[in-house]
């Protein structure tokens, strides 16, 4: 039971991270109908920027941990969002109106490019960071097995919750959110209502990249090891989460992220840990075969 509880906590933490990244996939799919396969790399770049920022802050002797995290979050989100924006501007926008597969192929190219770019600049070796936030609560303890909820895990889950709440608010209540939904449903009509579709798409990429950056900062802090290739696997899992939740659906992305995180954690706990990725991706296959619209997705209405 204690073991279960511990894995539940771990799974939720992991799921929160997947959820944050999955939102980027789902929003971009919603608005321009393409899978941004470079999104995992955006997350990876976020991790690297976070690591670099932490190193710089460490060298310049910033002692306050909350201050350091806050500064790093802001800087990382800013720079990563700029990357996300640039990717859309350079690799996708020129191809809008081209055949459907063009941006997809471009995305895969962008993904490979970004991996190699980071590998060249930062080296191929795994980078590690000493944990900054240590300690936590002991939830229960029995027979020498402690169930802990670390401060870091609390930070991750709390931050994810806050961001999710803010995001739902943004999409449902603000003019930008309405513009995004309008573009999702009918881009030409949105333009006729005076909405700058290009800018709305750009903002969507900015926002998605910003969330991936937060995920990058959090995983760098929590797990402490990164390399140029982490974006691939995490990106694919977040994509699986988005599909599981119903691609295009925002709450779906979050739900899918949590479910994937839990599946992974429990599979690793009770079955073979080496096969946890197989478990996660089996879900992708099963969902695509049996429920392509995902858990919360709407069936595709005819798109004009």
């Amino acid at each position: 039971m204690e073991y279960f509880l511990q894995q539940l906590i771990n799974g939720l933490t992991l799921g929160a991270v997947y959820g944050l990244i999955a939102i980027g996939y789902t929003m971009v799919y919603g608005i321009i109908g393409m899978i941004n396969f470079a999104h995992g790399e955006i997350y990876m770049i976020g991790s690297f920027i976070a690591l670099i920022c932490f190193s710089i802050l460490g060298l310049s002797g910033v002692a306050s941990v909350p201050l350091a995290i806050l500064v790093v979050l802001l800087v990382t989100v800013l720079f990563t969002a700029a990357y996300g924006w640039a990717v859309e501007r350079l690799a996708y926008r020129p191809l809008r109106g081209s055949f459907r597969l063009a941006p997809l192929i471009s995305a895969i190219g962008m993904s490979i490019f970004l991996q190699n770019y980071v590998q060249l600049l930062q080296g191929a070796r795994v980078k590690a960071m000493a944990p900054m936030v240590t300690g936590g609560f002991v939830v229960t303890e029995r027979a020498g097995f402690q169930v802990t909820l670390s401060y870091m895990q609390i930070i991750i889950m709390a931050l994810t919750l806050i961001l999710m709440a803010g995001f739902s608010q943004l999409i449902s209540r603000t003019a930008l959110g309405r513009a995004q939904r309008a573009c999702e449903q009918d881009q030409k009509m949105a333009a006729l209502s005076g909405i700058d579709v290009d800018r709305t798409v750009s903002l969507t990429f900015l926002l998605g990249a910003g969330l991936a950056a937060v995920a990058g900062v959090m995983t760098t802090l929590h797990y402490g090891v990164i390399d140029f290739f982490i974006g691939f696997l995490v990106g694919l899992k977040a994509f699986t989460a988005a599909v599981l939740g119903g691609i295009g659906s925002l709450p779906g992305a979050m739900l899918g992220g949590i479910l994937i995180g839990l599946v992974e954690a429990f599979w690793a706990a009770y079955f073979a840990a080496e096969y946890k990725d197989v478990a996660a991706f089996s879900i992708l296959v099963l969902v695509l075969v049996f429920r392509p619209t995902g858990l919360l997705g709407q069936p595709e209405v005819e798109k004009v």
Partner: protein
Amino acid sequence: MSALASPDAAVPAMLEVAHLSMHFEGITAIDDVSFSARRGEITGIIGPNGAGKTTVFNCITGFYRPSVGRIALDHEGGRFLLERMEGFRIARDAGVARTFQNIRLFPRMTVLENLLVAQHVKLMRASVFSIAGLLGLPRFREAEAAAIEVARGWLDRLGLVKAADREAGTLAHGQQRKIEIARAMCSEPKLLCLDEPAAGLNPRETAELNRLLLDIREDYGVGILLIEHDMAVVMGISDRVVVLNYGAKISDGTPEEVRNDPAVIRAYLGEEGDPPETNSRGPSPGRGRP
């Protein structure tokens, strides 16, 4: 019609379409069409199927870039050459709004949201890229409240207040048409382009539509461009009528002048026959193929 409606009135034209041509890979959809429209007037565009009416609209609203020609819009906001502008700028800066033959509401947004999207420009400005909106700052809340008030005013006028929170796609056809016009008006246009607003409406709804369009002209002083097959609508409420046939303009004038123009009669009914009647109840002559 009022004195305003007379084509001789000294009101300068707001919309000036000059030598407009549109070719699609060798097919000429519009051929050297020129006409003008004034603010506070309803300008009907009629013509048999395939005459190029909707293509003219698509050029004006930025869906197509015309092959040749100039489309100039003049009002107190400035002078705009629409043929060079991007679609959203034509809507946002030049103040052109349109509706579609096959209704294009945002079907999965509520009626209210549809009307708010049309007020996007001012809301976006008030919300400073949504930051103020997210924080719920008073500045955005006030702008949002004002926008909802405008939307409510329109729903009230159309008798659709109760439908405000329903998804637009679930409403009846006639209601969707009205909401599409209301949405266009919510963006505070200077020029309103209506593509067959009476299509699919029953006679009662058509009468309501006529009244609505005359009211809009009266209350807002916008210029209205109206493509319509239903002659009762066009001849009944237009101040001026432009007739297209095979992509070319064949007549232009008051409804009375156009009705008696031999070229129009030929285009509609062949060499001999009666001119299109104002109150034709039977199959509308506009539906006949040339």
